[in-house]
């Protein structure tokens, strides 16, 4: 273990969240749970990324009073990247939920194993 385990507490919790999301995505056989797990995983990554932009004792990067001093504001770039990421993950969520609905219409279940088994007969 490196020395910054406790000072990087935001990143550590982001990693914990990431792994909870990751294991939800892997372990749960209910598709809806899988999708929630994917969402948790994504927000954890965004938390990790946004924590990179934070600087203690500084203001949000909105230049209200015209002071152009880089030391006064937080780093706005990770925020911009996360903004892009959030929209990407909502799009993916919408698409996967639509797939779940179609699968439910066809097989009457949201359980991955049952679907895999039932779809084998379609071949």
């Amino acid at each position, binding site marked *: 273990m*490196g020395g910054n385990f406790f000072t990087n507490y935001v990143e550590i919790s982001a990693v914990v969240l*990431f792994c909870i999301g*990751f294991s939800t*995505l*892997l372990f749960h056989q209910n*598709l809806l749970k*899988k999708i929630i797990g*994917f969402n948790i*995983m*994504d927000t954890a*990554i965004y938390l*990790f*990324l946004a924590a*990179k932009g934070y600087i203690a004792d500084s203001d949000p990067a909105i230049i209200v009073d015209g002071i152009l001093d880089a030391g006064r504001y937080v780093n706005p770039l*990770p925020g911009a*990247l996360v903004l*892009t*990421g959030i929209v*990407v993950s909502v*799009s*993916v969520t919408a*698409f*996967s939920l639509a*797939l*779940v609905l*179609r*699968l439910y219409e*066809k*097989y009457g279940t949201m359980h*991955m194993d049952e*679907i*895999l088994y*039932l*779809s084998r007969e*379609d*071949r």
Partner: protein
Amino acid sequence: MQLIQNIPFISIMLSILAGVFCFASKAKLAERLTLGALAAITLMSAALLAELWQTGESFIFSMGHFPAPWGNELRAGVFEALMALAFSVVMLLSLIAGRERIYDDIAPARQGLYFLMINLLMSSLLALIYTNDLFTAYVFVEINTLAACAIVASKDTGETITATIRYLIMSLLGSGMLLIAISLIYSVTGHLLMDHIRASLEILAAKGSYEVPLAVVILLISVGLAIKSALYPFHTWLPTAHGSATTASSAILSGVVLKGYVILLLKIFYRVFGLEFIHQLQVANLLFAFGLAGMIFGSLYALREHNIKRLLAYSSVAQVGYIFMGIGLSTATGTVAACFHILAHAITKPMLFCAADGLMETSGHSRQIHDLKSAGHKNRLAGLAFTAGSLSMIGIPLFSGFVSKFYFATASLESPGKMVMTLLVLALSTLLNAMYFVPVIVTIYAHEDEGLAQGEELSFADQFIPEAEPEETGEPPLVHKSPVSYKLTMILFILLNIFLGCAYGPVLEIIERGLLMF
């Protein structure tokens, strides 16, 4: 700045705009638009390739008014131009060849949207090839994932939708890993552009700091992209997705989409980390081992298949194994061979899928191999194309597959530690390839009255016989009529394959020079 340097930007924008336009247009119009856009991109990429080959330089195109570390950038050299050309040609040919099947398999209301997906898929592939920025690469990886899943799901049977959700879940795991790796890189270097990350990584390497995070980053990126390009232990989604989609989708997914991620991985290895760094960390050895495993197990799975499309899909797993094996050899020749194999597989596998489609048409769309008996006589061109593709996959001289296998073998001689393994597995994999392709060829040229069991017993040595057979046989009982466009594309596919197999010199030189420019 010359006008020709706008080509990467124009081709990306063209395909996105064509995609947006398809949203409200009817299928026929959408198809024409898509084919037009693809043809235009093909021509432009060819012009770019010719120009860059003459000048021998690469260039950087800044997207917007802000230079390097502040704005986005595109970068193009001969390698990128060659890949863009190959991808657009393969897309165009597979779309034309699979055209009939698209209109059969997909409900009329969805056909326009299918072409929309194709356009956006093309734009994301082009962006992956040309981008010089890691975060842009992530965004376009997501577009690629969604569009690829959507073209599988467009057929709308239970099987395809199940395949899609498996594909989607695996892809999401992969993109999650990619994104966390990108944020780790950002956190230690503070840059997102490849050149600048490289510069600050060199400083970090000199100081010896952040070694653990960087090792984890390389591992995460390799695994993330390996999941998306179906390297062996992560391939589980591929057979169902590629085996159940409509023909054009299968052809495009196996020929082009898998390769886009490999190219991104190569770009990251070469342009972000530098080869020495990769070799220090043994990641190359990991990819090498997985590649070898994929070459054998992919073929073994294919041997068990009775469904022709799934057989071809498993064969893709084996071929992706070849590509990663070449990268894992970690010599310049190995990478060149891998890149050549990307091209060889990109033109062979779509041809096989389209030819299989032509064969299946003669037997009422059954995907079972034993239903295809004597299909090669009923649809002669498809039979010929399937034979040519199989021979290329097995690695018979004159076809492109031979060249890449030959170069893999040559490359292995340069890295003594891996030579024996590579040569052994190459030989074994060739044998296995022959063992599952030859019975299919024999079946499609068998006469109706012959038993199938006879065909299965034919050995590796007999593989030349089926090639000669179409000329020898007399009148086939029923000649299937395929549209002229299908015939033309099949002929073009075969010619392209033979062209790559014979005139491989200049192509290899382009790849070599392109990789040096990286």
